[in-house]
């Protein structure tokens, strides 16, 4: 039975109310629940591994967690830390407390790790126990405050602080924090003579009332650090104090199969003096998908459900992730190899098999033809096109259709609409003439299949007149350095770096220095009036540096994951940026675009949202994303190649009908994702079904909504259905939410009404041409749904027409019901 087949006219009508019914569900929601810590089944490991393999404890305060992993004959691994017996060979040198090695006195010894019949000896060296152990302000006190969340955005890290106490957000501004903690409030926050009387300790422990409640217990490691730092005189760190240069987390990635479902993480901070410190108890943790796994304050991860989760580990501004996958046998699941059309299917099916999710069957031809038309050119196939495709017996007809659609001008027009959103084409941003010129440039670039690296280069290095060289409008919409930084990062790197403008990014690795370092590539962009009214000339000055507003430091150009770029001289720095951006080994550039394309075709990005790449938002199929990006680079950034690859995959062509084993999957692409047509798609589709064109102010008759260069036509229907105002470069501005206004527009809005009742619309033309009810109904179905009606649907419709007493009115009802049907409103 068809997904949306109407079995009664009432069913057709009731479909109207389903517009808002598409609600998001969580992955495997039926299995979600509270954390269940099951006993470890140690079994018989082939060997065990202990991290770290050796320990050096160089101050009295040093500690070291030991994480023990079991490795099994079938390749499986699991964390055995909580089942491992740890024994110090010499407790006068070091002892073991709750799985943590603690120094006692200078010397060397070993700690034995025993589990599953295996034993590993870990050498331990203890030194420096005779020296006083000064608590670092940054790596002690501030880490402790960060750990407890005191300087989070919701508490004292907010711009105005809380209760008159303001700290820098997650300790990004050490100078501000020392001032605040030591000097403000008449020195009451820190009392070196009587540390325990410090408000900094008494408030979070609720010894005095604290609006934020209990945030610290005396038993917390953070309490001790803060107390000792205060007792030692509340000193700021010396200028030459060791700095944290990186953190490592163990394990970086791992797969667990039930009953294995827990993992103790080990977080080591590496300092500029070469020391390595265990900061497992001081780091902050979060899970990218708490339905899959949770993590506690001590870095202990508990898997809850099938799926993947990235555990984000943050130590001051340093961040790392641990990617963990949790598997579980599903009762009754039986994998059957589906045909694979290309590597996309390999990667998707591998993941599905691993997670025991069964993909749906391929979609029917009528579903495919409608789907691929809407996805590639943004409009419905005509009746003739749909009929021709359905009648075609060529086994390669889908591939042929894909190639044909990619060669049509509507492809460029439709995708120019998408890029118009991202590049913020509208009159107020780039002027009325600029909108048309820029839109034309984008459309031509897509039509000519300009390589994506060239597309980005043309935009990011554009200069000259915004009229004569339309991509220069990029720097008209991004009208100043910070906007350039943010827009470029989001569009081409998938990084939402806006937060780092004012402070280090609270959830990601991007710092304020990084933000202004990227800005240094764009700071020399200048704008001046052109010869014509509304024209702007963009050019790059020969000098001009960015100053970090907080530190006053002049920033060098900085590239993510690459570091400072040494670019002396007067050259246009954008060239260097784009050279890096479009290089084959750039980890962001290709991925962001293939993910954007994937998200458009599949309805959900491999990274979702499609322009929000971050450690805490990992791809749902990293292998697939890597593979697509690599293929994109190898094909010289050919976007049509990516489209063709995805469109030809079985993954794209699966049905939206779910099975028992994928009904809860929302992110592993086991079935097609149904989604409401975009505003422009929908309006064009209504025009196509009724054969009554919409007229847009200032544009020639016959212009389709998907051809609109900007939203300035001020069409209410389009706005209601989520047409973005193009104020930001974020894809999220295009709303895909359904709402009551949409339902009202479809049910009794003037646009639908006028087209259904239009004297020259499709159904009246057919009636005038002498077509009988069945013929008219059939054509309406083909126009709206790209399929002929079933016998039942014809019967329902003809009965309704007969009962209505007025044939034309009855046909109007059928047309109206079709327009309000889920099968019409949704991409499926």
């Amino acid at each position, binding site marked *: 039975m068809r997904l949306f087949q109407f079995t009664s006219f009432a069913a057709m009508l009731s479909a109207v109310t389903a517009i808002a019914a598409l609600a998001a569900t969580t992955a495997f929601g039926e299995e979600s629940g509270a954390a269940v810590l099951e006993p470890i089944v140690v079994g018989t490991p082939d060997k065990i591994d202990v991290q770290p393999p050796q320990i050096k404890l160089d101050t009295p305060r040093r500690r070291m967690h030991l994480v023990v992993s079991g490795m099994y004959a079938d390749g499986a691994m699991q964390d055995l830390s909580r089942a491992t017996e740890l024994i110090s060979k010499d407790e006068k040198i070091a002892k073991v407390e709750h799985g943590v090695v603690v120094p006692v006195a200078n010397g060397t010894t070993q700690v034995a790790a025993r589990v599953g019949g295996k034993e590993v000896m870990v050498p331990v060296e203890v030194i420096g126990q005779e020296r006083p152990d000064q608590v670092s302000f940054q790596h002690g006190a501030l880490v402790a405050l960060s750990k407890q969340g005191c300087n989070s955005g919701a508490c004292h890290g907010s711009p105005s602080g809380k209760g008159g106490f303001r700290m820098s957000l997650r300790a990004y501004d050490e100078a501000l924090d020392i001032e605040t903690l030591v000097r403000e409030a008449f020195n009451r926050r820190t009392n070196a003579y009587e540390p325990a009387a410090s408000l900094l300790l008494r408030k979070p422990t609720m010894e005095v009332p604290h609006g934020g409640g209990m945030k610290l217990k005396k038993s917390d490691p953070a309490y001790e650090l803060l107390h000792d730092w205060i007792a030692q005189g509340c000193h700021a760190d010396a200028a030459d104090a060791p700095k944290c240069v990186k953190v490592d987390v163990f394990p970086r990635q791992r797969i667990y199969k039930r009953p294995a479902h827990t993992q103790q993480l080990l977080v080591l901070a590496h300092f500029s003096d070469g020391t390595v410190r265990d900061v497992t108890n001081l780091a902050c943790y979060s899970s990218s998908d708490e339905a899959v796994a949770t993590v506690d304050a001590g870095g202990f991860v508990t898997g809850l459900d099938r799926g993947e989760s990235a555990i984000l580990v943050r130590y001051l501004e340093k961040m790392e992730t641990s990617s963990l996958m949790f598997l579980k046998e599903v009762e009754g699941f039986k994998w059957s190899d589906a045909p694979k059309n290309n590597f996309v299917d390999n990667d998707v099916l591998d993941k599905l098999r691993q997670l025991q999710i069964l993909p749906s069957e391929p979609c029917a031809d009528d579903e495919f033809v409608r789907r691929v038309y809407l996805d590639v050119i943004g409009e419905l196939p005509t009746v003739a096109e749909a009929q021709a495709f359905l009648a075609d017996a060529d086994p390669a007809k889908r591939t042929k259709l894909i190639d044909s659609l990619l060669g049509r001008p509507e492809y460029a027009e439709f995708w120019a609409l998408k890029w118009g959103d991202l590049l913020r084409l509208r009159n107020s941003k780039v002027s*009325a*003439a600029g909108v*048309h*010129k820029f839109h*034309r440039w984008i459309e*031509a670039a897509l039509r000519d299949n300009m390589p994506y690296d060239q597309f980005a280069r043309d935009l990011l290095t554009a*200069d*000259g*007149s915004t*009229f*004569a060289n339309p991509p220069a409008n990029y720097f008209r919409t991004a009208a100043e350095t910070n906007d350039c930084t943010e827009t470029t990062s989001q569009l081409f790197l998938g990084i939402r770096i806006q937060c780092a403008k004012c402070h280090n990014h609270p959830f990601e690795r991007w710092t304020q220095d990084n933000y202004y370092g990227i800005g240094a590539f764009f700071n020399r962009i*200048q704008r*001046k*009036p*052109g*010869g*014509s*009214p509304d024209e702007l*000339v963009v*050019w*790059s*000055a*020969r000098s001009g540096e960015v100053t970090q507003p907080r530190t006053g430091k002049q920033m060098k150009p900085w590239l993510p994951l690459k570091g400072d770029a040494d670019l002396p001289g007067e050259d*246009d720095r954008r060239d260097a940026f784009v050279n890096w951006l479009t290089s084959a080994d750039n980890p962001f550039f290709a991925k962001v675009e293939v993910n954007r394309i994937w998200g458009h075709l599949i309805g959900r990005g491999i990274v979702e949202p499609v322009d929000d790449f971050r450690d805490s938002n990992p791809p749902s199929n990293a292998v697939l994303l890597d593979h697509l990006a690599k293929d994109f680079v190898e094909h010289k950034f050919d976007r049509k190649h990516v489209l063709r690859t995805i469109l030809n995959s079985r993954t794209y062509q699966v049905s939206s009908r779910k099975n028992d084993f994928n009904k809860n999957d929302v992110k592993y692409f086991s079935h097609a994702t149904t989604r409401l047509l975009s505003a422009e798609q929908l309006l064009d589709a209504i025009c196509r079904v009724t054969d009554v064109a919409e007229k847009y102010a*200032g*544009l*020639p*008759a016959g212009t389709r909504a998907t051809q609109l260069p900007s939203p300035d036509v001020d069409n209410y229907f389009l706005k209601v259905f989520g047409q973005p105002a193009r104020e930001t470069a974020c894809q999220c501005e295009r709303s895909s939410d359904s709402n009551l206004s949409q339902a009202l527009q479809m049910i009794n809005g003037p646009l639908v009404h006028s087209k259904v009742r239009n004297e020259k619309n499709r159904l009246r033309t057919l009636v005038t041409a002498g077509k009988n009810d069945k013929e008219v109904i059939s054509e309406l179905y083909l126009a709206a749904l790209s399929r002929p009606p079933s016998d039942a649907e014809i019967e329902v419709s003809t009965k309704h027409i007969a009962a209505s007493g007025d044939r034309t009115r009855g046909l109007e009802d059928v047309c109206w019901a079709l327009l309000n049907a889920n099968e019409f409103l949704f991409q499926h």
Partner: protein
Amino acid sequence: MTRLMRATASVWTMDVSLVCFGLFLCAVIGIVAAGTALADPPSLSYCLPAAAAPGKATDIKFIGGNLAGATGMWSSLPTCAHEMTPGVEQNGTKADQVTYRLTLPSEVPVGIYGVRLATTEGVSNVRLLMVDDLASVADNGANKSVATAQELSLPVAVDGFCEAESYDFYKFTAVAGQRVSLECVARRLGSQLDPVIRLLDSVGHELAYSDDEPGIGADCRLAYRIKQAGVYFVEIRDIRYVGDANHRYHLRIGDFPLATTTYPMAGNKQATSRLVFCGPDADGLPPLNLVAAASVPGDQLPLSAKYADGQGSAFVRAAASRLSEQIELEPNDTPEKSSPLNLPGAINGRFEQANDRDYFQFDAKKGQRLIFTGRTRSLGSPSDLFMRVLKADGGLLAEAEDSGVDEGVIDVSIPADGSYRLMVEDLLRRGGPDHVYRVVVEPYSAGFSLAIDTERFNAPKSGVFVAKVTCTRRDYNGPIALSLEGAGDGLVLTGNTLGEGAKETVLNVTLPPSVEPGRLMNVRVVGRAKIGDVEFQTTASTLGVLRTAFSGLEYPPADLDGAIGLGAGPLFPEFFELAAAPAIVPYAQIVGGGTFKIQAKRLNKFDEKVNLAVEGLPPGVTAKVAAIDKGKGEVDVELSGVAALAEGEHVFRVIGTATYQNQPKRVVLDKIVLRVVKPVQVGITPVGALVVGGKQSIKVQLTRYGDAKGPVVVRFKQLPLGVTGPAEVTIAEGKNEGTIELAAAADTLPGKTLLAATATASVKDRAVTVDSEPMALEINKP
């Protein structure tokens, strides 16, 4: 009311009624003839065709308004014979069009020139007309789709316009290997169109597209080599899909080259220059050996060029120079390889490729101040100059500002004797054959530049035109004298001196009577000053108004800059009259004062303020008078002064002045009578006839002046026999009316008799006695 006053009032009443009727008639006439009462100079919208052909006569239809009665045409063409085209029905009588036949010599370069027309109402705005060696055809108006494309035979130029939300399509047949150039001349002709053109194959696939192109601003052009014989389509539209009859285009299609400029960019007026044409498709054009006569007006030369076997020409402009024109010596892309630069002079260079920098070395003395002025876009080069003056050690001495739309200027003072370098590169680091530039290097001199806010002067016969002239001074703060050149003698100029430090003036010029309506003159406003020992002069620029008039065209033809059309219309009509009320103005003795009104009759929709002055009053009498405000019809005038004037009459005058549409007018009421009267006047009026045996009331009315406010005793001088009444009545302080009741005894004789009263008052402690005018009292039988 005194007899005098009554009489005056009745006269005024009668006059008013007559005047009102007259006003009514005038108003009716004024309404009917509202468009003709005041000058209505012609206006030009566009020309059809948009181009005249060199070497032949072309009938050009000028489209616009108020064109009936055209009397002449002016153009910036060096030679152009013209006449109103004979044989055109009603030619010269229609308001919306007039056709002139222009006959051009064959050597007139293809290019863009200015034209304007005159009628007996004045002179038109300037419009742009092309000289084109491609024949013109008209857009047929029915070519809105590929299916209905208008067929063309190449080479050709099409004159058409784009409608809103629409396209125009043309089709032509071409053979394989044929080179086809398309060029849309629209904004360069002052059109509002921002054109785009697309070349399509026979099934509508786009082969080439052009929007704004380097060197030609918003206009577009392309050259395409036909690969396959067949039918091709050209689509033209406004990039914004806007349009109307003013969104015109002159679409050239043919085999012409696409040149934008020359290298070098200037021809010397004293020597032969060898210029090479540059542009996106100008290869193969032979160089031009140019001899620019010293007498060539202006500082630019129109040039055109075509291929040896071509039928159509490209058109460019080159500078006409009197300077030493120097050419860069490549390689000069490092300081060490600088080209020599001799001062003063001009250098011509070219950015051969992207990131090309050119260096020029020159010697200068301490204290020298030099001005480096770039020229690129105004002469068709797409370059935007970035310039620096460097010291010998490479240190920066000065850099051109790059924030505005100018073409690059450096004003630098030399700190020490020695060698310096000028570094030039494209602001956008571009390069190519057409990226040529010219930098004029001259010693700085104090001076000024002028700009004027109009490109045409229209005045009534013997009337006035005004214009605002603004000034930008360069180290000169003294006076600047403005004159109008090209208009002959007899002009009267006011506001023609910019005083010390002044930045603007309103120039006011009155035409001499010898300038008859319909005459068309081309004039310039020139500013002169003696700066030190130098007689400095410059012409006021009209570029600002031309840019506005030509839809934002950045570089209008340079020879139009400063050219102003001057025309005269008919005499300016009357627009106000004045009258005094009352016509005989009373002036009271003892108190020394009086009042009257000045009333204005406004004509021809005149609504502005009328300034008034009173002259010729007796010695010691002054008038307090204000203007009749905008929209008002009258104002009170108060007289005051000497109190000891003897009774009697004096004559004085009131002068009214106003300006309407810049035309001044002065109206003089020169025979107003001032009558000196006593400070209290009395009048008597019977309510009706007195019936024998009955009673009747006689109304007494006082007129007081100034401080004459005290009680007044009124008594009849002599009552008729049998008529009795009170001996006297007293009209209380501050009151002006009273009643005396008379009774007629039964034996009173009927008939008419005269009755007079005497009023006695004390004004300023002086007894004043005044008689009323005699009044007729009718005594009737019962």
